[in-house]
């Protein structure tokens, strides 16, 4: 009997719930695996997919979103060994699962904590409710590859945003593996889109794209690039989250800022006393 030939994996992009190669056909080597090198057009396609997913995801009940995210945490837990085999420390995988569950729990609590009735001087009910911003572009931190990625994706999507993530250029395997987790978690296609490759190529397209509502620059380490991206983002008044400091500790309690930064507040006045 002949010796079995191993089936080697090509790490592809994650756009609209599918795993396409880069439209440009390019790839690069990471840990002796081929990883797609996303182009500007891939970024454009990802934004189209993310925009198409907003209506369904933002329109789903908060409870349903929470359930789906919890399901993603279950799948993540089940793939622990796969992440460890990619070189992610076991502790980090555990922390990533915990963080995902923690954010999942916030799905049906955000509106209560950040919305509510406002006292006004007049015969009105005045109610504020938080709503998702829309399509959020995210530059994920270079490392920690998994915990960092989870810490930027989960807070954005929990409230109903959809994201286009430019994954860590040096450690993209965890990002594509996370995409496989999400693809099997009932998460609708297009809610999370992951681009691998050079940040310098995809981020400027995302920052300038008029159909992106917010950009999270957490993973940008080059100050000049960050400035350029902020200038581009200003064109259509995107919400901007500025780069994280180089010594940021991802293992500590993340707080609520990442979730609340990507919310819009809708306030309704309703006459009463009739």
């Amino acid at each position, binding site marked *: 009997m002949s010796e079995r030939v191993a089936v080697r994996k090509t790490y592809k992009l994650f756009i609209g719930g599918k795993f396409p190669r880069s439209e440009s056909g390019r790839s690069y080597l990471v840990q002796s695996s081929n990883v797609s090198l996303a182009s500007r057009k891939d970024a*454009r396609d990802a*934004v189209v997919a993310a*925009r198409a997913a907003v209506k369904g995801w933002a329109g789903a009940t908060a409870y349903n979103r929470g359930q789906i995210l919890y399901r993603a945490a279950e799948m993540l837990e089940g793939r622990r060994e796969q992440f460890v085999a990619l070189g992610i420390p076991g502790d980090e995988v555990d922390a990533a699962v915990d963080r995902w569950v923690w954010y999942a729990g916030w799905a049906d609590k955000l509106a209560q904590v950040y919305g509510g009735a406002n006292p006004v001087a007049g015969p009105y009910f005045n109610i504020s409710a938080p709503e998702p911003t829309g399509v959020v572009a995210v530059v994920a931190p270079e490392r920690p590859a998994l915990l960092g990625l989870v810490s930027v994706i989960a807070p954005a999507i929990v409230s109903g945003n959809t994201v286009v993530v430019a994954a860590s250029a040096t450690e993209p395997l965890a990002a594509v593996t996370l995409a496989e987790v999400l693809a099997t978690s009932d998460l609708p296609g297009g809610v999370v889109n992951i681009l691998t490759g050079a940040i310098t190529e995809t981020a400027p*397209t995302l920052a*300038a*794209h*008029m*159909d*992106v509502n917010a950009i999270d620059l957490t993973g940008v380490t080059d100050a000049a690039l960050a400035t350029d991206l902020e200038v*581009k983002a200003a*064109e259509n008044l995107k919400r901007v989250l500025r780069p994280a400091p180089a010594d940021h500790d991802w293992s500590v309690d993340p707080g609520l800022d990442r979730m609340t930064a990507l919310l819009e507040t809708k306030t309704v006045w309703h006459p009463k006393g009739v």
Partner: protein
Amino acid sequence: MTATTTSARSELSELGRSETALRTFLHGLPGVDQVGAEQRAAQLGTRSIKTTAKAQAIDLAIRMVDLTTLEGADTPGKVRALAAKALRPDPADPSCPHVGAVCVYPAMVPYVAEVLRGSAVHLASVATAFPSGQAPLEIKLADTRAAVAAGADEIDMVINRGAFLAGRYKEVYDEIVATKEASGDAHLKVILETGELATYDNVRRASWLAMLAGGDFIKTSTGKVPIAATMPVSLVMLEAVRDFREATGRQVGVKPAGGIKTTKDAIKYLVMVNETVGPDWLDPDWFRFGASSLLNDLLMQRTKLTTGTYSGPDYFTLD
């Protein structure tokens, strides 16, 4: 001009006089190789059109758009807004060309005419009991005359598919001739509704029938049945207009309608026009797109080319 072509022409013009002659001619047309047509259409869709060529293609496609709204919910306000958009598709960019025409129901023609008066944008109206065509001939003709009287200079008629599929070609022919007469100076576009014709052979026959009867344009679909314009169907129709011009010297336009939503699709069609019938047809007078959502995608792509950044649907009107 040789004696044979002259006699061939007079023979063709005699065809409409008898059911038998018409049937013999239409069934004598060579059959369409289905696999070949689909493969050819797919192959033409693989061309890469970039940079300046793309910019030219987008502007040409915008000039070829028949901006269409054919809804029960159309109101005077909605069609006026649509007509204003036809004149200035991208208000932010004065270099953006106007579209080819606005296409509405007859009852909406007067409101559009007010807005388009004095412009180069044509006003098309569907008529003849659109979209089914299932009404008595007098009503179809009255429908047509009313649209022309209200200011339409292009009439989009539907053929009688029931009669065509039953093999009553003379009836279909006579209806087109009568509608052409009722249209007067207005251009007549003949909608074949290819989604209901079942085979490419029927599409070729219907194309010839419409051209023989005097149609100025042949149009694929109403947009009201599930299968609208497809590349292979349009290819068969383009081949028909090419062969018809060769046989008679008269040039007929083609209008694929329905289902063309993206710039990429539109450019594929333009490639197919150029490769099948040549640059003579690469003009809004001879080729049109019946579409509504296509225009916004063309405008977004145009904005990308002129500004370098991707635009979004938030920046263009919905209708």
